[in-house]
């Protein structure tokens, strides 16, 4: 793996995870969506967009998205897509310390297995 690919993967992982955490924070603020009818879903999404953390999350995801687009133009998706999933550990820590989620030992074990599995998937 070249340094250029490693740097882009780091940018995608860090900005993507921070974006996810931020968006998750905004969606928790609006409360549980109980119906999938557009008349219910659209106003709820509109409410979510009144939270700053939604826009911050989208900004961070946009950085992650365009970095990923650039990366996919020269690197194989079969390498890039699994490698960007290094964000599982970062995501679990962010969820615990920023969102206050309670991560049971079983869930930590699952996250570690997923992370290891995704790392192995990126070998050819």
């Amino acid at each position, binding site marked *: 793996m070249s340094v250029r690919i490693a740097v882009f993967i780091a940018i995608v992982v860090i900005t993507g995870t921070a974006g996810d955490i931020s*968006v998750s924070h905004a969606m*928790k603020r609006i409360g549980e969506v109980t119906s999938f009818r557009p008349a219910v879903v659209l106003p709820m999404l509109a409410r979510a967009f009144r939270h700053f953390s939604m826009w911050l999350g989208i900004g961070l995801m946009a950085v992650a998205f365009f970095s990923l687009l650039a990366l996919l*133009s020269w690197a194989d998706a079969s390498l890039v*897509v699994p490698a960007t999933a290094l964000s599982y550990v970062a995501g679990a820590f962010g969820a615990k310390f920023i969102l206050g*989620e309670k991560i049971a030992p079983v*869930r930590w074990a*699952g996250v570690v297995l*997923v992370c*290891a599995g995704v790392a192995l*998937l990126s070998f050819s």
Partner: protein
Amino acid sequence: MNSKTYSLISSVVFFSSLGNVLLSKGMKQIGEITTFSPSALLPIFIKTFSSGTIWMGVASFLVFLVSYLLLLSWADFSFVQPVCSIGYAVVAVLSYFLLGEAISPIRWVGVLLICAGVALVSGTEPRTVAD
């Protein structure tokens, strides 16, 4: 895990995988980006957004995004993120059976670890924080 959570996770997994495949295909058609000067990026930008494959990829990501947002309105991020990784295992298995891609033993181990990890996380309570 209830059926609402299950349905939205399926939607997230399907449309994010489809979006990645379409964007990868579209960007490969455009060719490698070697410089990042604004004058060089503009034609690439125009080419990218006049590609039908790219737009189908963008549409898939839009469906993925709405499903994902709705899911996060009740489920923990630390539940949603690992459970949705089942998509990597699905893509690997589909690449093997549909595209005839070779999958090394070490990657099969990766697929199994992901499945085991998702099984463990999906057995936990999807929500641990109150409104």
